[in-house]
């Protein structure tokens, strides 16, 4: 299942619609990096509210996405990690270190706008 990517000004928003397979996550990674280049985006929001489980592969892919996009000079923020999913991630030892996270889409956008101000 492909993840739709919306363009909102300088920001790209990718919203998971359901649980994703490894192939879907890999596809999202390449699509996001391509589109950041194409639209010269400065920020990316990945909304994982619909993700049922964040296992080691999903966490690693999200971290890779954030780091690749940072190398393009843009910022990524992961939003919508559900409390239960967060609990399981901590038990599993997954921390998403070095990746910005926010409560929801609104907070994610606020975070990026703040970042853009300081980047100018």
């Amino acid at each position, binding site marked *: 299942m492909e993840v739709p990517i919306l363009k909102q000004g300088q920001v790209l928003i990718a919203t998971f619609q359901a*649980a*994703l*397979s*490894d*192939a879907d996550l890999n596809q999202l990674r390449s699509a996001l990096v391509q589109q950041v280049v194409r639209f010269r985006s400065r920020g990316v929001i990945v909304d994982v509210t619909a993700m*049922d*489980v*964040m*296992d*080691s*592969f999903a*966490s*690693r892919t999200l971290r890779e996405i954030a780091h690749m996009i940072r190398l393009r000079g843009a910022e990524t923020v992961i939003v919508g990690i*559900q*409390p*239960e*999913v967060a*609990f*399981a*991630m901590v*038990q*599993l*030892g*997954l921390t998403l270190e070095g990746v910005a996270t926010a409560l929801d889409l609104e907070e994610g956008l606020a975070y990026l706008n703040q970042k853009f101000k300081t980047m100018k």
Partner: protein
Amino acid sequence: MSRVEIRVTITSDQDIVLARQKGRSLALELGFSSGDATLIATAISELARNIVSYARRGEIVVKDVQGSSRVGIAVTASDNGPGILDVGQALRDGFSTSGSLGLGLPGVRRLMDEFEIFSKPGQGTKVMVKKWRP
């Protein structure tokens, strides 16, 4: 005695998602909280991932377990893959032979209440985990 048993053959990343979704449904059916069901689904996801990464093919079996005074869920992940040379090492955080995070098995152990592993080089791997309903 178990009453329900779900078997999922694991051959691809799609099966990982299927196995964890079926496991979650069974956990909820058995009366586990949604939070516990997520822990169980995460453990299934990691175990199924190990099958795909190391053995390519295997099976996940999820069933209920009836203790004397409690109900639980048991997950068995088995494959006929290359097996694990040093099980003790594989159970330590930070160890991996496939370039992954290497948190798989110790993480699964923390997510569940009981954890057993049987593996020998060339003879496959079998991991059996259980979680009891509080």
